[in-house]
């Protein structure tokens, strides 16, 4: 088969539908990565326009441009859009587009999940923007502190849009994080062991793990606050046993890791682009990986530094102040490793390099002001002033926007197959750089003069007039620069000359293909033996196009790839991907219906939407079943691999592990909330304690013990060739009994609207019941698969996945029952 014929055959297999209809049914990471990035930049423009409105408002004293009601919506939406609808999705889009190419494989682990995540993001983001257009956008500041955001002080639907819309969008973050984690760990080219992974993959892995553990506390907070607003469960009301500080803890438990979730991907871009710009390799690869891991770890220990002024005990302040300064050390390691890389190589001032230099200047200043506010006495003065606003823009614009611009200019030839023709980019960079520093250096100064953040007007006597005008002028220079970058990119896409392959002489695998990237990504998969495959084999692209790697022969219209052992990169299984389908967009539309009916309080639609999600999910997994035992699959080079349906740990098992990691964090945050309210909140003990019942507790715990044991037995019997159906049904019943005990807890929770104790028990019981239903549904699904002949001693991959969920349900369910009944017994 000639390379061109292979290209045609593979394209036919992998391509999405032609025209715009293809957008709705594509599950290909090439399309979805582009769609993510494009949508994220639309939101970036919206967020940027909001920023311009803020600067217009503050340009002159006593501004009559917008009243506080509108202005409060503007700055709330600016922060919300930039954080949730631009920064995180940009990382997701970039990782979705790049990772399979960097890792030498054909797609991500769960293509339909990628599409589902994208549509959740697009729909959720649209909800927020529509709210803004109608003038009912959230207006409580992007961190939504209750009681300001509670029903009493924020009546109306504005805050609900934030809580529900952002939770909807976060589904996409969690989906992408599961996707990225499993892809990096399992979907790589043969031979690519962990230490041979491109550095960006490490950063993406660390970031994805951080999303899995950082976002759940915020999701929990949003759920609790929405429950309080909609149903009067008083989690954050001090007079009813709640505490508004709980929100601050949950929010910043997410909010601080969030900063590093935004910075780390950008650092990954720098670590990838900088060495290429300097014609050398990265200095201290292992050190940089360790620094990223250390940063991720430490970033979870310093959320309290956002709460230095809330009256935290002094010892706590000292601890978190120390942690906040400590986090600068791994950042320092990365910065100096990059500068060392520049000394080692021969830096060339291409456009991506200019933006990297912009990063260095801006981010180092942001880091240094960050160290200043980590010093508690300084923070007591600077907190909630424009100084903080300026600091965070130095960190985020320096640490994210400049590197992303560098990445855009670096990978633009990959997206388009063209090379830069007009020289608008250099001028645009100069405007962005100078505009940014004028705007935000001035803002530091205004903050030190006492200007609070979030004020909509000030008086001439305050003495901030000139400094604000300078800042506003700077912001318009910045905006013009960004508009020019946009024009530059558009000109590039539509007019530039065709480029040769690998224009930067980079050494990573994404350049070993024709550009723009074909739908199938690699015609055949490479065998990787070093960290810089293209440096060793510059002709790799041709070799792969000729089908000389793995899986070079297109078969039966199947989308094939292979998965590897996580550590060594040894090929482990043969994987078939699903083809184009509208299932993800339909499923996210139904998910959206669920959120929308909560938002608009059409509660009768909620169960319908939930049932719809369940039916679609059932359809989703059903299509994975095989009727017959698959043979060993030939993947080329005389290698035969087992099908993923016949292994102990299938991709779905890995996906479940990481989804449950996020879920477990959510549960841990919920338990933390319970303990926090109990020990810290005023208004405890509650007037009525839960009446414990030994019978309910014993029944529920018995169900929780039996279910996983029965699943284990089902796995053993199935492997031995015996009928597993009965054991699966026992497991299902065990989970159901656990669910009933949790439902009883919900029904008997004492006065949930009168004290946070009762509301917490209600939510705990609801969590247990929800998972028991999921476990029972999964058991039912497995039973059906067994009865219809979709499983066998060989086709066993579904069993461990169900077992995992059953085990998780049992552990959390037992903890919930113990926590509730013991709290009643101890009182």
């Amino acid at each position, binding site marked *: 088969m000639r390379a061109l014929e292979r290209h045609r055959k593979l394209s036919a297999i992998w391509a999405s539908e032609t025209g715009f209809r293809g957008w709705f049914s594509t599950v290909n990471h090439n399309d979805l990565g582009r769609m993510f990035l494009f949508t994220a930049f639309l939101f970036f423009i919206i967020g940027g326009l909001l920023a311009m409105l803020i600067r217009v408002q503050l340009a002159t004293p006593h501004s009559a441009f917008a009243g506080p009601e509108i202005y409060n919506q503007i700055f709330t939406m600016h922060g919300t859009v930039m954080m949730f609808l631009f920064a995180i999705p940009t990382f997701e889009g970039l990782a979705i587009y790049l990772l399979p190419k960097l890792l030498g494989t054909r797609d991500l682990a769960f293509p339909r999940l990628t599409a589902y995540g994208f549509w959740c993001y697009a729909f959720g983001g649209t909800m927020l923007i529509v709210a803004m257009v109608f003038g009912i956008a959230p207006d409580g500041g992007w961190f939504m502190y209750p009681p300001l955001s509670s029903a*009493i002080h924020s009546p109306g639907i504005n805050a609900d849009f934030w809580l529900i819309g952002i939770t909807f969008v976060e589904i996409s973050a969690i989906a992408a994080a599961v996707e990225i984690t499993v892809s990096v760990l399992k979907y790589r080219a043969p031979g690519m062991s962990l230490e041979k992974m491109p550095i960006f993959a490490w950063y993406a892995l660390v970031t994805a793990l951080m999303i899995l553990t950082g976002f759940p506390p915020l999701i929990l907070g949003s759920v609790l606050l929405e429950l309080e607003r909609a149903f009067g469960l008083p989690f954050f009301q001090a007079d009813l046993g709640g505490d508004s500080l709980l929100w601050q803890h949950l929010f910043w438990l997410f909010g601080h890791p969030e900063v590093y979730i935004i910075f780390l991907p950008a650092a990954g871009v720098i670590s990838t682009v900088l060495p290429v710009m300097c014609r050398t390799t990265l200095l201290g690869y292992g050190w940089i990986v360790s620094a990223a891991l250390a940063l991720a770890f430490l970033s979870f220990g310093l959320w309290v530094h956002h709460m230095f002024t809330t009256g935290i005990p002094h010892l706590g302040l000292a601890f978190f*102040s120390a942690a906040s300064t400590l986090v600068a050390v791994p950042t320092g390691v990365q910065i100096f490793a990059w500068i060392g890389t520049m*000394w080692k190589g021969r830096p060339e001032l291409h456009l991506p390099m200019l933006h990297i230099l912009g990063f260095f200047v801006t981010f180092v200043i942001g880091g240094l002001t960050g160290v200043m506010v980590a010093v508690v006495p300084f*923070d*007591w003065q600077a907190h909630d002033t424009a100084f903080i606003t300026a600091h965070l823009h130095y960190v985020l614009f320096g640490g994210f926007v400049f590197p992303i611009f560098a990445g855009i200019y670096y990978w633009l030839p990959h997206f388009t197959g063209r090379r830069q023709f007009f020289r608008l980019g250099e001028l645009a960079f100069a405007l962005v750089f100078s505009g940014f520093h004028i705007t935000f250096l001035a803002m530091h100064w205004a903050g030190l003069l006492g200007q609070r953040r979030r004020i*909509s007007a000030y008086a001439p006597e305050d003495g901030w007039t000139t400094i604000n005008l300078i800042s506003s002028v700077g912001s318009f220079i910045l905006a013009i620069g960004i508009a020019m970058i946009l024009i530059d990119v558009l000109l590039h896409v539509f007019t530039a000359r065709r480029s040769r392959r690998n224009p930067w002489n980079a050494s990573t695998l994404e350049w070993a293909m024709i550009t723009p990237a074909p739908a199938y990504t690699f015609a055949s998969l490479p065998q990787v033996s070093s960290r810089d495959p293209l440096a060793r084999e510059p002709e790799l692209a041709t070799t792969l196009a000729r089908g000389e790697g793995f899986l070079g022969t297109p078969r039966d219209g199947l989308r094939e790839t292979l998965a590897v052992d996580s550590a060594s990169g040894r090929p482990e299984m043969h994987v078939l991907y699903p083809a184009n389908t509208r299932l993800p967009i339909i499923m996210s539309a139904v998910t959206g219906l669920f959120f929308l009916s909560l938002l608009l309080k059409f509660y009768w639609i909620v169960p319908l939407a939930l049932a719809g999600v369940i039916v679609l999910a059932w359809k989703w997994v059903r299509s994975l079943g095989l009727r017959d035992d698959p043979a060993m699959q030939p993947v080329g080079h005389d290698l035969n691999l087992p099908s993923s349906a016949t292994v102990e740990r299938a991709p779905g098992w890995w996906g479940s592990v990481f989804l449950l990691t996020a879920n477990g964090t959510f549960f841990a945050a919920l338990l933390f909330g319970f303990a926090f309210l109990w020990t810290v909140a005023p208004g405890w003990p509650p007037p009525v304690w839960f009446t414990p019942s030994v019978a309910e507790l014993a029944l529920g715990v018995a169900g929780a013990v039996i279910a996983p044991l029965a699943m284990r037995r089902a796995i053993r019997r199935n492997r031995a060739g015996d009928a597993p159906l009965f054991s699966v049904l026992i497991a299902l019943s065990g989970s159901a009994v656990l669910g009933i005990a949790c439902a009883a807890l919900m029904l008997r929770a004492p006065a949930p609207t009168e004290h946070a104790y009762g509301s917490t028990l209600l939510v705990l019981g609801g969590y247990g019941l929800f998972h028991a239903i999921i476990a029972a549904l999964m058991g039912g699904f497995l039973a059906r698969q067994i009865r219809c002949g979709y499983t066998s001693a060989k086709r066993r991959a579904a069993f461990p996945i169900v077992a995992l969920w059953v085990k998780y349900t049992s552990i959390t369910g037992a903890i919930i029952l113990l926590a509730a009944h013991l709290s009643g017994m101890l009182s």
Partner: protein
Amino acid sequence: MLAGAAAIFGLVMILLGLSFRNRRSSGEEAGQIRVWILGLGLGFPALVLGALLAYGLVIGERLVPRQGVEAVQVSAQARRWEWRFTYADAPALETTGVLHIPAGRPVDIAITTADVIHSFWVPRLAGKLDAIPGHTNTLRLEADAPGTYQGVSAEFSGAGYDGFAFEVVVHDNSGWAAFLRGQPE
């Protein structure tokens, strides 16, 4: 702190600029890692940050209310959008928008709120401390000289936040006594 930050920033910029020289730093990767990563990346920040942290903690310790000192007790309660102040030494007295304290004596301000979160901030006298529903936070401050000081609430609280300010009037001894008797000069 500013000078130190500027010096560190200058150092990084110089190192960045020098990387564009034509002469290449020779030597093995191991040596470069020692210089860049162990020396500048790990050692240097650890040293600077350690010193800064110690400094911050010592200063912070000095600002914490200590037992055993006879402090004037006042209460500050915030609501949207006004502050009400009451005085332990004159229980009948309540002032709105103006806090009266004596000069030269430590004052403990018990900060509470009647509705949402606010923050008590008199920049020239002390740092911020939040007013959190259901909690009482105590701020210790001491004004050296009589006079009038501007204070603001520094936690976003909705539509009336812009103008949410108050004043602190610091009295000398006789003025304070007069105020407590309900006869301001």
